[in-house]
């Protein structure tokens, strides 16, 4: 079973969100997502300053098996992106919730965090896919 930390929020499209306080969140893709994609060879990051709405395409993760769009789990403005993934996309595989983070976003609608899944609800989503 993949790792699904209790303190994070999740989207059904396999992104995680960490509330950093001050209306800022860090986001990335889940351990389950990196496991299904396999070894990543390329990550296309969103642009700093880009404004996002829920469900917007915000980048692409590409493995030797497949390319998959990243969908924004929240609305807001991109403050910072993880440039190191350009050279080391494998960080998403080895440490999806740490060094493999993708972007930091300033929330425009903070209450959207409550609409995201908690760890238990996301576990159910991931388990259903693994059957």
């Amino acid at each position, binding site marked *: 079973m993949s790792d699904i930390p209790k303190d994070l929020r999740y989207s059904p499209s396999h992104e995680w969100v960490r509330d950093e306080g001050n209306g800022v969140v860090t986001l990335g893709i889940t351990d389950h997502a990196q496991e*299904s994609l396999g*070894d990543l*060879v*390329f990550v296309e990051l969103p642009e700093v300053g880009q404004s996002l709405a829920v469900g917007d395409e915000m980048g692409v993760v590409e493995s*030797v*098996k*497949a390319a998959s769009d990243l969908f924004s789990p929240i609305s807001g403005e991109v403050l910072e992106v993880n440039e190191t993934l350009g050279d080391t*996309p494998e960080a998403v595989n080895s440490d999806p919730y740490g060094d493999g983070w993708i972007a930091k976003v300033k929330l425009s609608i903070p209450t959207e965090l409550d609409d995201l899944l908690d760890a238990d609800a996301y576990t159910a989503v991931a388990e259903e896919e693994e059957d």
Partner: protein
Amino acid sequence: MVIFEHSRAGRRSGAHRFDGLDAVGDLPPELLREAEPELPRVSELEAVRHYTRLSQKNFAIDTHFYPLGSCTMKYNPRACNTLAGLPGIVDRHPLAPDSHSQGFLRSMFDLQEMLKSVTGMKEVSLTPMAGAQGEFTGMAMIRAYHVARGDHERTEVLVPDAAHGTNPATAVMCGFKVKEIPTDEVGDVDIDKLKAAVGPHTAGIMLTNPSTLGVFERHIEAIAGIVHEAGGLLYYDGANLNAILGRTRPGDMGFDVVHMNLHKTFSTPHGGGGPGAGPVGVGERLRPFLPVPMVTEEDGEYRWLTERDRPQSIGRLSAFMGNAGILMRAYIYALLLGREGMERVAMFATLNAAYLATRLREEGFELAYPDRRPTHEFIITLRREAKQLGVTAMDFAKRLLDYGHHAPTTYFPLLVPECLLIEPTETESREVLDEFVAAMAAIRKESETRADYVRGAPYTTPVRRLDDVRAARHLDLRWRPAEEAPAPAPEVGEARQA
């Protein structure tokens, strides 16, 4: 090894010298090169051995079963190649006047007519030079149609998630926004989701039928009704035309534009990047927009149709009219088959797929859509094998090479986990299909007792398992002489250390 590595100063090959060519004498001296060009210096025997060895490394339809799903790797009859190489065809200059090109023009006119008839469309243009260009042409015409009507609001193209993988890219290339339509659990387009998605912004839908799931879209008439009613047009991706050739026609299903991959369905050599041929056929609404040139016939004379005849044409896609040599091969193939032969193509392509699917199921493999009849191809999922034995679809694919079969398409379509997409084509015998089933069963047996061994395959090929991750992360496509080469690249090409 590349041929430059055989090069030694002073060696030459008499067989590869050009005689009778005069040097161009009137070039300004400042444009003449001073150093000799870097060409390999090898003897005739070295050149012959080098290229013969390379050809022996081919894993090709001429040497092996090649069930690469979605690619239609069928046998290319030698007659097509021989006849397309007749001097009257290859020596014709593309700028020769129509009066000197009547034979060639007539062949192309007849090919247009045959493709019209077999797809049920009103008119065909042969000029697109590949499948991707055919797709581009189709969507560019749909765009031109809406613009010509002053209907500038139609900016969205619907693409079912079982469509051919290139479709969304084509729609974006033509300036549209893509809206994905989900597939229901038995592999048909979700009609309710389609109804909810159409509207005044719908430019059209791109559909592959049979879809990449290897099943025939049973609701196609309903889909055509819904999209047309909303004011959109229907684009047929011809990727899987082999399954229906001569049996049913996109024109009868309600499609407005069709592209055909002649290099697949009409059996011209393909793989390795072409050349291809992607003609388009259209219904009445899109006729004015077809790309030129096309061939027309008036009182027994054949001539080119150009922009003068078709002022609303989307224009030209190449300097002349597509890959003429490939079009000739397809024309000869169609003549060899005849109308009835075309129908046999689809019947045997689907029979072979159905036989192979049934035999694999009897051996205990899981079909992705067990309740549906396969068309010309079908999907098995190895998720059980991956979970229980730790041997993936990729491991099966690699091990098949050791058994003398090209691997099926792996991990596509994305909708099915651990999948192999298998397309035997109509040109294989039952014995070959049985050998393939036996190989699959043997690999599973090996996986139960020696999983590590299967995970290390292949063992009998000139190159062992590639480290595809490292190859993708450190892409290096250029050969350099040893003294110029950078530090040795990581050992891409050697067996992965498990």
